[in-house]
């Protein structure tokens, strides 16, 4: 035992003539700093606190203090049986009912591995968070683009309204906080994790983020050009068919395709397809029959 510990006055940092109040004040100040339960990770705190507590027990009892001052006893002869501190239980996960994740609950919100580890840690304790529940929700392409609200019926018959943000992609997961299983103790409820499945829109061919649609145009529209209405994933759009367009001419509607992973949208491609009237038209027939330039043009010839 070192010299500092053997003198209770030095241990408490008071003079040998200190009053009872001064001794109490000094002890309280040290106890607030050194109590092992206020220093869960400091292994040396227990020994330091024990010295301070023993010094105080001796000096706070007038008879014991008198005997120490007279040299009849020393500080070490007056120890209480060792106390087991709360921190010992807490550090071995035995005090789960008290443990609390309020200090880092926000770190558990993400979908990253760090958040998952924290959630697992919180679950492992007595006050564990509830389990997450996984669902799958099929939405239309239009809903994936524009967002909206969709009702989901859970296995227990309850319903939740899922708010779908704009521009979601197939496989994206929406997390509804607290809609999973209830937590144990004071643990937070788990989350509902809803994986979105974007159903393909049958009106379009899906090539990556691009949507391709064949649009029929009349011969007149193809020859003279026109403004025509075409379907889009979310409604309709007006596009300009250039004069002298052919079947296969492709018009691009930028940013009108399917939502793209990481933001933005692909394009919609409008492929023109020239369609003649169902009933043969004599006037058209006669015109083409005597249209020399038309007869001279061979689209299968190289360079046509």
């Amino acid at each position, binding site marked *: 035992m070192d010299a500092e510990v053997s003198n209770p006055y030095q241990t408490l940092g008071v003079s040998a003539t200190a009053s009872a109040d001064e001794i109490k004040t000094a002890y309280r100040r040290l106890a607030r700093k050194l109590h092992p339960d*206020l220093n*869960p990770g400091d292994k040396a705190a227990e020994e330091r606190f024990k010295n301070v507590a023993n010094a105080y027990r001796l000096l706070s009892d007038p008879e014991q203090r008198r005997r120490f001052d007279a040299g009849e006893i020393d500080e070490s002869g007056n120890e209480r049986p060792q106390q087991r501190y*709360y*921190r010992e*239980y807490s*550090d071995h996960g035995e005090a789960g009912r008290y*443990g609390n994740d309020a200090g880092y609950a926000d770190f558990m919100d993400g979908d990253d591995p760090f958040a998952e580890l924290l959630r697992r840690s919180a679950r*492992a304790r007595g006050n564990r968070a509830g389990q997450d529940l996984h669902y799958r929700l099929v939405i239309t392409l239009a809903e994936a683009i524009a967002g909206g609200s969709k009702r989901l019926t859970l296995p227990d018959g309850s319903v939740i309204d899922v708010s779908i943000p704009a521009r979601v992609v197939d496989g994206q997961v929406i997390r509804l906080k607290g809609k999973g299983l209830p937590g144990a103790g004071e643990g937070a409820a788990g989350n509902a994790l809803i994986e979105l499945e974007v159903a393909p829109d049958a009106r379009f061919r899906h090539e990556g983020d691009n949507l391709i649609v064949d649009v029929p145009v009349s011969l007149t529209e193809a020859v003279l050009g026109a403004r025509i209405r075409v379907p889009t994933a979310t409604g309709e759009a007006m596009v300009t068919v250039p004069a002298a367009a052919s079947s296969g001419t492709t018009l691009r509607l930028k940013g009108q395709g399917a939502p793209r992973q990481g933001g933005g949208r692909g394009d919609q491609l409008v492929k023109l397809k020239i369609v003649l009237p169902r009933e043969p038209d004599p006037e058209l027939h006669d015109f083409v029959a005597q249209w020399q330039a038309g007869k001279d043009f061979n689209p299968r010839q190289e360079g046509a």
Partner: protein
Amino acid sequence: MRIIELTTFLRESRIQQHTLERWIEQRWIIPEDAERRAGLSDINAARACFIRDLQDDMGVNEEGVEIVLHLLDQLHGMRSAMQTLRAELDRTADAKSADAD
């Protein structure tokens, strides 16, 4: 964890029964069977000792104890989370060194 008799609990934690009842009421102490207020454990006794130290030795008043316990429980929650993270990092490091071998 060990369930202990009420008299043992009071002797170990050096508090009176009415004090224990008030602390249970305030949820500073939560018996193992919280609903029936039964089942006092050595963990509860250690926690009661700490609360007693806060009040008697450190002069912390009731409002102060409430705050200290709330923050301390968060601190232990964080320590537990850090232990999980450390175990996971150790596991990852072990797996990597096994791969290197």
